[in-house]
């Protein structure tokens, strides 16, 4: 149980976005194929499918590595992740020539702080819980 702490941190980190991906993919499938919304999300779906869960896993590994030297609360540490993911997600949309709906740009001044808060809460309570269960908190 006390072996491979970084592997356990990675697994605890990817668990939440992997589960949420099911919700996102279901919503996407319904929107795209049931309501025929003409937005080609499949062009950029690789970002939430592959990059985000791995980023969560690696971020949790980084938190564990940092934790051994400096005690940063996991909520605050997790809240910093959108500061990397948001530009990354936007970069992917630009590289793949995906047209972001203008409504998203209109709400973007509010979206980043809300994203930070959501990440803070999810990391503090969900990832923190998983870390504690796996003995790496």
């Amino acid at each position, binding site marked *: 149980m006390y072996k491979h702490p970084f592997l356990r941190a990675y697994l605890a980190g990817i668990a939440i*976005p992997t589960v*949420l*991906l099911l*919700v*996102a993919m279901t*919503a996407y499938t319904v929107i795209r194929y049931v309501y025929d919304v003409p937005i080609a999300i499949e062009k*950029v779906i690789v*970002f*939430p499918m592959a990059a*985000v869960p791995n980023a969560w896993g690696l971020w949790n590994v980084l938190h564990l590595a940092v934790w051994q030297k400096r005690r940063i609360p996991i909520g605050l540490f997790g809240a910093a992740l*959108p500061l990397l*993911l*948001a530009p990354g*997600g936007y970069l992917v949309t630009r590289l793949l020539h995906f047209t972001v*709906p203008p*409504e*998203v740009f*209109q*709400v*973007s001044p*509010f*979206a980043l702080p*809300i*994203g930070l*808060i*959501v990440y*803070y*809460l999810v990391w*503090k*309570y969900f990832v923190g819980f998983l870390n504690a269960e796996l003995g790496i908190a």
Partner: protein
Amino acid sequence: MSEREVDEIKKLLKREMKPVGKAELPRDLWPAMLEKLSRGAASVPWWDWVLLAGTGVALWLFPGMVPALLYHL
């Protein structure tokens, strides 16, 4: 399987599987388990409830944020 083979396997098993030695735990783990169970769920501070409520209101007022949020989760 012949008697000789059985003896050979016994010998091999005895050689490879060393005696456990002291099998008892150094301490009783049950009191620690009871203490953990009695602690219950961690209490949520009031500011986290405020943040959660504020997020809910913001998502309700600006539903355009939901897809952007899902994209990054």
